[in-house]
């Protein structure tokens, strides 16, 4: 009977479960000789298998969200910009050496107010994806973002950022041009801003490359988007030494909107049209627009808010530890 149950277990648990079975077999033999019962052990194994099943179910549920967050028909930064901001003008270049188009940055009008907008863009068809480098940025992209943040601060434009990236581009030329410093300086610049910053996690929130643009006063997260310290595949290959258990890693990382809301990392979950944002992109964009407007209006009315201090306090209070 236990063997039947084992059939549906993920490979990663099989070894452990087999160990238990083996023990029970041993106990059975002992019983035949000595009369000691093995019911307890059998019950324990059944519980274990049920537990594996539960983990597996949760992992599959999480993985569905991971897949949705990466769905190429989800609205992307360019779609949000098109529908939310009037008169949008994109700018280019880091003024040092390059233009990195994986990040769209520029200025537009929202409810009559000029705002700065920065977001990763992945692209939809193959040509676009190559043009946008699949939303993976080079140091130059983060430096362009810093440039737009500087302008926003100078002219008092509120900043709205859209996060959708598998992560900063891990390539030799990115390293040679200072990927680490480009990201840290982007984070640093966001802490220096006196203007309000609203961040919307719209798809994949991949590690430091996502955080670089995500230091907001208010963090909105789409229901089926993710935000994680490392991709599930990367985590699986480092900690499990087996990239095939990415689903288990995804569950363990707690990267869904519900997990992040519980942990206090995001301020609001934005629910998506039935089945996911890709089923009704126009509706999704409208919903996001409503939230961005309402938070921006609230911020513009609150003249006494120190947005810079608010951001510092918000992020410096994040952490779980025992302090005896």
């Amino acid at each position, binding site marked *: 009977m236990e063997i039947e149950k084992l059939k549906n277990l993920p490979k990663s648990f099989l070894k452990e479960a087999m160990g238990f079975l083996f023990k029970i077999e041993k106990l059975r033999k002992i019983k035949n000789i000595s009369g000691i019962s093995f019911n307890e052990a059998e019950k324990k194994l059944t519980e274990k298998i049920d537990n594996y099943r539960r983990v597996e179910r949760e992992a599959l549920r999480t993985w569905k969200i991971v897949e949705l967050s990466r769905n190429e028909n989800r609205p992307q930064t360019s779609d949000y910009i098109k529908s939310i901001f009037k008169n949008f003008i994109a700018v280019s270049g880091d003024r040092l050496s390059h233009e990195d188009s994986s990040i769209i940055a520029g200025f537009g009008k929202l409810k009559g107010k000029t705002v700065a907008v920065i977001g990763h863009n992945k692209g939809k068809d193959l040509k676009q994806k190559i043009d946008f480098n699949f939303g993976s940025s080079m140091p130059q992209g983060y430096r362009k973002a810093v440039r737009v943040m500087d302008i926003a601060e100078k002219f008092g434009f509120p900043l709205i950022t859209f996060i959708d990236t598998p992560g900063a581009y891990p390539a030799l030329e990115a390293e040679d041009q200072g*990927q680490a410093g480009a990201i840290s300086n982007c984070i640093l610049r966001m802490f220096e801003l006196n203007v309000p910053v609203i961040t919307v996690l719209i798809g994949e929130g991949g590690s430091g490359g996502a955080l670089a643009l995500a230091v907001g006063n208010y963090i909105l997260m789409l229901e089926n988007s993710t935000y994680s310290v490392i991709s599930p595949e990367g985590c699986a290959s480092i900690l499990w030494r087996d990239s095939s258990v990415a689903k288990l890693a995804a569950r363990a990382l707690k990267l869904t909107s519900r997990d992040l809301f519980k942990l206090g990392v995001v301020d609001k979950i934005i629910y998506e049209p039935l089945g996911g944002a890709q089923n009704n992109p126009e509706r999704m964009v409208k919903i996001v627009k409503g939230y961005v407007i309402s938070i921006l209006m609230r911020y513009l009315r609150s003249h006494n808010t120190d947005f810079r201090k608010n951001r510092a306090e918000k992020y410096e209070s994040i952490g779980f530890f025992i302090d005896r």
Partner: protein
Amino acid sequence: MAKIICKNCKKETDSEKFSANLNVCPGCNFHDYLSSRERIDLTADSGSFIELFSDINSYDFLDFIDLKPYSERISEARNSGLSEAIITGTAQIGGYDTALGVMDFNFLGGSMGSVVGEKIKRIADVSLEKNIPLLIFSASGGARMQEGIISLMQMAKTVSSINRIHEAKIPYFCIITNPTTGGVSASFVTIADIILSEPDALFCFAGPRVVEQTIKKRVPSDFGLAPRNLKNGQIDMIVERKDIRETLISLLYLFTTN
């Protein structure tokens, strides 16, 4: 007598001679691992180090289990004699008061979780309150994955703490030791006023294996190493272990007496 085999030139050295030479190979000058305690002894004026915040501890708030539960990994790491991946405190260096943070790769790969973030925040607060320079020796594989998104948030947290040091115009120097990668590279390390690096220290954002998987090519043999980082403008200087204390004293002299 016990022998040490150099990881670089594979030559044997008496272990006593090796440690007397600060864990640097006398043959090829390869800088091997040095513990955080040894580093403090080497850097601070004798007896001046006062450890702070040693009783802040990690716990497994996500019930994170990979091949082992995170809680088990924490207790195993503690058996090595370290309480966390960073030691913080105050010390005098050449008579100059400093706030000091020293990371240790031997505690869970020097990974940055909530405790590392909190200790950096608090030592930054000490530096602010006492108006003394902040020095951090980095050694880390990156963010602590077992703390999920909260470890990513420590990048923002530490940058914010250092930002307050910047605002107060207090000098902040970072000394990169082997290895310094991932989330630690891309946060408090690279926003230092002056960045020193030990020879042989790997310092990058994405490690060589990740880059090789992406570009489907071998990376050059000097990838992420100090000479290449110096050439590319990512660090200010390469300083041998035996000279770090004197270099720091010179910097402290320049930045604190005006």
